[in-house]
């Protein structure tokens, strides 16, 4: 097996998820290499060595400065073609999903996504993928090489192996159409908000609230419980609540002792950000909402009735 791991970085730091996938590749065995694409990223290569890469390909190019997928597809195409990698692994993110899918089309290669494990079984590589809202696990594979895979975020913890990597510079040739999209503004955080990562109790609101004004219900309950307020991507994108409070794949990952989900359907992108919470309580009017699959205590009902009542009860209980 010869594996290439795509390393994602932000503000001079390698992403934990990328290092976790690198560690998984090292544990699977064979030759493990990694690739770093960006501007001024060479100093990150040594760290990748500590986490399991024997060689790190580095492209330092102003044209790769913005985290846009298409020039990265160009770089990976020639790297995989020349390097003969049979497996290319990505930690899932907004950027890497687009890179992986573009590369799959370019190489005519198979891509499996949302994997929560990779194992060798009967001499072949098998990916484990939860499907239909995690109701069934699917064993997936590839019918040709290279095999491309996106690993669900938060799946593997980075593990230092204490190794070191050889650094090899590459100068990828980028195609015109790959450079047509341009980053005008990058990673702009819209507004300041409370820190939710360290909260013991989180009350989170989703689209089921019906409108931004109803976040008051969530805030009141959070206050009564002595917790912080969080939100889903849908309501943050809709401008109901600040980005800083967002839980999920493109937001924060939290693990409070108690997580109360109000009007949240519980899509995978939300679940990966809060599934390690101690206790999960969910209130939603849709009995088929995926959140009920993993809530310790779920209530099918009208949040506008239940939440104010619960807030009163908690207040009374705390005052007693």
């Amino acid at each position, binding site marked *: 097996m010869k594996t290439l791991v795509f390393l994602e970085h932000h503000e001079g730091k390698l992403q934990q998820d990328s290092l976790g996938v690198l560690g998984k590749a090292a544990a699977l065995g064979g030759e493990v290499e990694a690739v770093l694409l960006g501007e001024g990223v060479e100093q990150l290569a040594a760290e990748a060595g500590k986490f399991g890469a024997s060689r790190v390909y580095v492209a330092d190019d102003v044209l790769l400065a913005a985290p846009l997928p298409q020039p990265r597809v160009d770089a990976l195409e020639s790297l995989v073609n020349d390097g003969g990698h049979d497996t290319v692994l990505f930690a899932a993110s907004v950027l890497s*999903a687009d890179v992986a899918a573009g590369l799959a089309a370019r190489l005519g290669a198979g*891509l499996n996504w949302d994997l929560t494990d990779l194992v060798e079984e009967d001499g072949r590589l098998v990916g484990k993928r939860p499907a239909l809202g995690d109701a069934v696990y*699917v064993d*997936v594979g590839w019918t*040709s090489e290279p095999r491309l895979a996106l690993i669900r975020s938060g799946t593997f913890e980075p593990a230092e192996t204490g190794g070191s990597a050889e650094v090899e510079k590459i100068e990828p040739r980028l195609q015109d159409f790959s450079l047509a999209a341009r980053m005008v503004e990058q990673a702009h955080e*819209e507004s300041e908000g409370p820190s939710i990562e360290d909260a013991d109790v989180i009350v989170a609101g989703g689209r089921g609230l019906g409108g931004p004004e109803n976040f008051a219900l969530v805030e009141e309950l959070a206050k009564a419980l002595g917790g912080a307020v969080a939100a889903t*991507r849908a309501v943050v994108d809709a401008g109901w609540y600040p*980005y800083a409070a967002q839980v999920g794949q*493109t937001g924060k990952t939290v693990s409070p002792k108690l997580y109360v989900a109000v009007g949240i359907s519980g899509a995978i992108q939300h679940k990966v950000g809060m599934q390690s919470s101690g206790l999960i309580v969910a209130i939603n009017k849709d009995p088929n909402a995926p959140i009920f699959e993993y809530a310790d205590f779920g209530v099918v*009902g009208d949040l506008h009735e239940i939440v104010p009542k619960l807030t009163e009860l908690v207040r009374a209980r705390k005052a007693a």
Partner: protein
Amino acid sequence: MKIAVCAKHVPEATAQRRLDPQTKRLDRSGEGTLNQFDVHAVEEALKLRDASGEGEVVIVSLGPERALEAMRKALAMGADRVVLVSDEAAAGSDLVATSRVLAAALEREGADVVLFGQQANDSDGAVLWAAVADRLQRPLISQVAELTHEDGKVRGKRQTEFGYDVIEAPLPAVIAVSDAINEPRYPSLKGIMGAKKKPQETVSLGDLGVGADEAGEAGSRTEVYALSDPPARGDTVKIEDDGSAADKILQFLQEKKAL
């Protein structure tokens, strides 16, 4: 402006979804509907067309023949016509094969903008646009929550793990929109009545010049080996509110010493 929207026919959200243990594919025998995430792409396409004052919105889909019925919802909303690629040989197409077929259908249309919804409701796939953009050799902006169009360029604002990006691309371009981008309109009665009369074309792989070995299972590079139950979770409780739900939540929190 000419806009193509890639849309998918998926099982009804209310239907009990299951994977067929024999074929290991999703059981599609029940009622089907237009993928809810694609409805946002249709809405955005209608807005772009209407703002530009000319052009058309064409829905491009790959699916069984009865997918046409689901696509009629897009026509009822205001889209102008549908091109459905339907071919026995295309069944079971994975990402590589699907993107090949769709790209061939889109080449034929030559739209200024190709729009995708945020994900497929059934497969949870959220990557197809990047494969199609690569095949069409067009710039891509994904996860767009706000879209503007000016002077032959589109500008998309989108959320990533690190905050908000603003990305600009010249037309023609491929854009995937998030479901936060708009509130889709409901089809009017007149729209629903008129939908059946709008052009609905069904094409085969041969019509697109795609070989049978380039689509379906033959053209795919991934496969499903086995299905299994997920690891057991702790006990989960689900109750219907009969007016006492708040009390029961409080009781649960007290039992678990979470207060």
